[in-house]
């Protein structure tokens, strides 16, 4: 509570400063290109349901902004990062976007954390012609909102087919049970993709069970699934619910040979923390892996560790890469005019990031290679 008060005070001071700065900036940037402070923002779920993801995004984006400002990548100009908490809700995201666009006059917003919120808040930015770079939105229907909406997070529709193909090659399964949260855009979207992939590859779906956000008890669904003897269980859930499912599956005596295969929601170290030994063997498709051999990845993991004392997760990596992608576009545009930066952003091609060679396709969706990872001894490892 004391931290929150502190934060509020700081935020108030920051707003006061920002209001002054952005006015100067408008005059500067049109006159002599890049100088002064360029305001960008991060909207993260720092509290609420998705609070397992938001803080790592915040830390990683701060790290990237610091590095960029220190390196002089933007010449005289510096990035100014404003962080807002959307409390994991649509309403929170809308309020944050409103404030950032109207008051702070940011040129680009990273986030919001949840696809559910992005669908509600991104149209505001599109109307105001402010760039949005989603760094963790993987549901469908996000970039379709408009030409100012980008994302660097691989959509489930790219990651999942890869996950199913690779795990099927190794584990050889033919019948699965599916569980998903039916009251969230992201988990429902993940389910739609899984269903399509499974149908396309001729894998039999024994049953489809649903649950709700914040549910704690999954034993009824899992008992039903256990009775049907599936080879694997496919789950589209956020980390907190996923942890409950993993734990209760093992409590009900579903054997370890039945792996629980998930989507993007699994890709947080919190999953292993929350589910403990029950998380062993959980498999998920991911856009990034901690041991990736991509440019700058090793340095990123080290620096992040230095800053926070723990390893980054995929969401941290995507937020980190997101800041670099925006900075690169600002540099290429040679201006902080949102329209110019947007055009430069859309041309991003084979940029070296921690996610690998990064490009945007014509739909402003990211293009790079996904990985499949599994939890072993409480840590993510490449699935082999």
């Amino acid at each position, binding site marked *: *509570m*004391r931290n*929150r*008060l*502190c934060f509020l005070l700081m935020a108030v001071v920051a707003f006061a400063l920002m209001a002054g700065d952005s006015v100067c900036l408008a005059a500067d940037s049109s006159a002599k290109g890049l100088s002064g402070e360029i305001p960008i923002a991060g909207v993260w779920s720092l*509290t*609420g349901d998705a*609070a*397992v993801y938001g803080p790592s995004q915040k830390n990683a984006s701060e790290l990237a902004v610091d590095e960029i400002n220190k390196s002089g990548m933007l010449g005289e100009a510096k990035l100014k990062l404003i962080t807002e908490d959307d409390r994991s809700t649509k309403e929170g995201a809308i309020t944050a976007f409103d404030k950032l666009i109207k008051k702070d006059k940011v040129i680009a917003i990273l986030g919001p954390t949840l696809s559910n919120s992005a669908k509600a808040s991104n149209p505001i930015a599109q109307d105001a012609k402010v760039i949005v770079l989603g760094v963790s939105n993987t549901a469908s229907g996000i970039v379709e909102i408009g030409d100012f909406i980008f994302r660097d997070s691989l959509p489930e529709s790219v990651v999942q087919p890869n996950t199913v193909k690779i795990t099927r090659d190794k584990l050889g399964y033919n019948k699965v049970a599916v569980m998903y949260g*039916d009251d969230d855009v992201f988990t429902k979207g993940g389910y739609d993709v899984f269903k399509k992939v499974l149908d396309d590859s001729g894998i039999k779906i024994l049953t489809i*069970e*649903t*649950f*709700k956000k*914040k549910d*704690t*008890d999954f*034993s*009824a*669904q899992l*008992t*039903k699934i*256990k*009775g049907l003897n599936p080879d694997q269980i496919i789950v589209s859930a956020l980390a*907190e619910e996923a*942890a*409950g499912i993993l*734990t209760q599956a*093992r*409590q*009900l*005596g579903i054997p370890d040979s039945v792996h629980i295969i998930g989507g993007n929601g699994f890709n947080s170290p919190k999953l292993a*923390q*929350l589910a*403990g*030994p*029950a998380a062993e063997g959980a498999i998920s498709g991911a856009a990034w892996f901690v041991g990736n051999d991509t440019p700058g990845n090793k340095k990123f993991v080290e620096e992040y560790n230095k800053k926070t004392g723990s390893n980054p997760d995929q969401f941290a990596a995507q937020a980190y890469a997101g800041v670099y992608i925006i900075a690169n576009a600002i540099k290429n545009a040679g201006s902080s005019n949102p329209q110019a930066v947007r055009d430069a952003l859309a041309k991003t091609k084979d940029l070296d990031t921690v996610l690998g060679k990064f490009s945007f396709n014509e739909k402003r969706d990211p293009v790079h290679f996904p990985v499949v990872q599994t939890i072993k001894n409480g840590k993510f490892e490449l699935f082999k």
Partner: protein
Amino acid sequence: MTQLPQQLINGVWQGAALALFAMGYTLVFGVLNVVNLAHGATFMWGAFIAFVCVTKLNLSLWYSIPVAMIGAGFMGVLLDRLAFKPLRSLTAGSLVMWAGFLVLLTGMLGDWSPGTRRVVILSGSVVLLAGLIQDFRSVRPLRQREVPHLAPMISSIGATFILVSLAMGEFGAQVSRFPMNLFPIKPYQLTSNAVISPIQALVLVLSLTLMIILHLLIKRTQMGRAIRGIAWSERTSRLLGINVDFVIAQTFFISGALAGAAGVLLGLAFNRLEPTMGHEVELAGLTVIIVGGMGSIGGAALAAFLVGMIRVLSVAYIDSSFRDAFVFGLLILVLLIRPSGMFGRSKVSRA
């Protein structure tokens, strides 16, 4: 059909935990005719008290459960004295308590240095305690009040917000969990297709034990007789020389302790503690006590098992998307057929 035995076990152990929660809920309603909506917050705090005992104080779980129950019980008493009793009869003690409580809140929420913080919290607690004692000793209230039934309910909603915010400040909005090694994860094999995990067995045994204790307490002791007396008529009990406010405090203690026990047990079973964990069980609990008949303890226990069963069976044989629809469908059905609930009777015969 192979899943049936397992589903029955799932329903029974969860029904048992829900019954613990609902019995305390309905007990307070029976005595005061007040729906204590802060019962869910007491439930949550019970879980967090045990959490602090286990993680910070390194107590074993077997001590933590009673500590959490007693802690949650006292929280129930404080709740009565701060949120409900001033609405019935205001004493000088109530005012002192409120002053102490505000100092305590300032201490917990303000931006103090650790030393000052401790002093402010401590002095707040001392004043609060003094007010509590004064409140218990006071014979003649400053004002005897007749407030509408809605007022205590709204005041309990306020109490919920305060309790949840305090927990958020203290433990954060994120999910906390008990250490993993408290219970083995490997289940006991009961029959060829039914298992029960150690923690679920513990929930079941402990809940049933507490239910029997509560039953004996209400039916066989002087205190239980006083509680039933007040439920029947507060005025008559007062005339007969029963210390009504003290008995109400006892009722809140029992109710809080039961909520606390349910909180610890469900917190352990799902290993997911968060400040808002009371909301969902609150709704389920409300359904249970309405279905069981407001104020009827046995009815609440039975209805809890019924709701537990409907939840699992609707998933097992119909569709998991409609789970809550079936539970609330039951609620509407009962209200249509027997508006007073399965075991609800008129106020006279409830005693």
